[in-house]
């Protein structure tokens, strides 16, 4: 008997990339876009790199997020260019510089991280880590974190619903305690769920001495090579720069 009423959608993740590629992209984007490494030589490449996460989000059919991101990113860069060109001074300039700078630098990195989290399944991630010869002591907590993240979001949603019903909001009488009211139940619930979760995982044999298998097949495809090549360029430029 199938419940025809509600059927969860098949996982549709669009373009599938190896988690290692995504990790390489994340590191490259953060180093060059956020860290500003490479200086002038990489200057031209940075906007290209910054567009990568948005493009990836588009392939994963997250159109709304991607488009908002693109508009914000280009909007802030243009505003900054405008401010520079017109030689603005004083407070306004600093506000523009501050907010646009932060937005332009952080947004691509956050989006890249988000894409990595959303498009990678736990087993793909573990498999990739295994192939990178990372120790189990590191992989298991990380994979738990992957699993736990959506749960925490769910719990936080329910709690904010409860707060709304009690009239606890920024304009309300209890505004000063708003963080406490959110954190206390969240922590209690997360601890409970975490405990149940570990009990369930242990009864299914996690932590045994045998070598764990992973049925998830990962590997590099055309899109991975293209992305890795893109990552390589700024690094090569950086190294050349340092050597000279």
């Amino acid at each position: 008997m199938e419940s025809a009423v509600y059927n969860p959608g098949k996982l549709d993740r669009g373009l599938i990339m190896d988690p290692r590629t995504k990790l390489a992209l994340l590191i490259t984007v953060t180093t060059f876009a956020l860290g500003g490494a490479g200086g002038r030589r990489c200057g031209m490449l940075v906007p290209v790199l910054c567009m990568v996460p948005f493009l990836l989000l588009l392939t994963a059919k997250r159109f709304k997020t991607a488009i908002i991101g693109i508009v914000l990113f280009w909007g802030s860069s243009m505003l900054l260019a405008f401010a520079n060109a017109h030689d603005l001074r004083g407070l306004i300039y600093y506000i523009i510089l501050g907010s646009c700078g932060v937005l332009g630098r952080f947004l691509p990195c956050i989006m890249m991280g988000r894409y990595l989290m959303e498009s990678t399944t736990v087993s793909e991630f573990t498999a990739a880590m295994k192939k990178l010869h990372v120790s189990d002591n590191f992989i298991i907590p990380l994979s738990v974190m992957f699993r736990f993240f959506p749960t925490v979001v769910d719990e936080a949603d329910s709690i904010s619903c409860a707060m709304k019903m009690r009239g606890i909001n920024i304009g309300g009488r209890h505004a000063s305690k708003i963080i406490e009211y959110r954190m206390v139940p969240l922590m209690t619930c997360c601890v409970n769920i975490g405990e149940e979760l570990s009990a369930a995982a242990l009864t299914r044999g996690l932590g045994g001495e045998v070598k764990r298998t992973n049925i998830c097949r990962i590997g590099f495809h055309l899109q991975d090579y293209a992305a890795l090549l893109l990552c390589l360029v700024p690094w090569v430029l950086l190294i050349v720069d340092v050597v000279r």
Partner: protein
Amino acid sequence: MIEFENVSFNYLRTEQASVRNINLKINKGETVLLCGESGCGKTTLIRMINGLIPHFYEGRMNGSVSVAGMDTTEAELYETAKVVGSVFQNPRSQFFCVDSTSELAFGPENMGLPEEEIRERIDTTVALMKIRSLMDRSIFEMSGGEKQRIACASVDTLNPEVCVLDEPSSNLSLEAIEDLKNTLLGWKQKGRTIVVAEHRLYWLKDICDRVICLKEGKIIFDMPMKEFRNLSEEELRRHGLRSINENLSMAPIETGKMNPETITFEKLFYNYRNCDALHIDRLEIPRNEVIAVVGSNGAGKSTFSKCICGLMRGFKGYAIIGKKKQKSRNLLKSSYMVMQDVNHQLFCETVMDEVTLGMDEENRQRVVEILDKLGLKELADRHPMSLSGGQKQRVAVASALLSDKDIILFDEPSSGLDFYNMERVAELIRSLRGQKTVFVVTHDPDLVRRCATVVLRLENGQVVNTNSSGEIKDYGREKEKCYSAAVRICGQP
């Protein structure tokens, strides 16, 4: 197969022993039901079989437990895991992966089986449990019933000799319980030894061969199911048990007159990503009565409740309460949901602070009155998180009463409760009748029959049946029977 020898156990930081001097032998291929009031030690026994006691939950343990010749107190958890598969109460917190296929592979992967064999095992399980349509999907987007089926399937891929289930039906609809029943029957046919701890007994009467009842950590009886089925209702009640021949009808209680005032909801529409989750043009319900909302998983009950409480973003409908039109924002102010996990809505350090949090003005006398009425007076200085589940529920109700809400909605208030606690919840809800409009979203026919005056049945986001108390529907059948339609298990006559 399973042998308890003189076993006693104290959880850490508790005075009272949760089980005392248990001697028990369960044979291979037997299906055993463990029952008894909440806190009688059922869960403790289950945890001893799967080794979580003493390896995960710490405490003082005496005696020995052996499963298939292995001492579970000595063996490491991953050794026990090869023999014992466990299904737990909460479907939300027992899957480890995000997608269903890796979840099924998780157990065998931990055992280090070769990839080919794992794939074969998954195929066998999928065929056996008929869950092909659930494969390769996100578990987060599944309904409770579907999650529980995945939990059973992921136990099945380990092919354990012993299966233990700890209140597996608590959060399930009647339809999903039927699925669970079929799964257990399949396991039984394979000759597995099954131990189920449960409060709702009706669905196990054709599955279990033996019933063990516990009270305060001791076995009070151990009899074959044949004998157990003949126990009278009074005897069951004495042990705090629910009926074995549970009446699945969801007819409302018989009451005198209904309140003639009404609340009208209009345009209860809501879509999730092109999927019509709720579609009710107009719904008129009597004010200050108890309205049960029933229906299978995914019928739109939770969307319905969120809309009524004004928690849905972009919800355009409104309610007319006493000639005043209340839009979503006002609904948020005039309604309150008692959530299934009450922990989400307790914020303060003492019960007193908690219940007065939403009050507009301090009114000491009224607070005391209401606390007294709900039996919370002595607990006023306790921390809400230190209370029992039922007490927490009462605190939430008290805060709703004190913040002058018109509508109180209970989301599955009786899930996982034994007979007495369920009765207490029903009593609490009944006591609200006449002062508040109460919605009860539930799967529990026992609860519906004890407190609801109107029963709404949702299906595919629409109200397909309404039954008010005292109203005789012209179905050409008895009134009682006509409404058992509400629970007729889908697809089965």
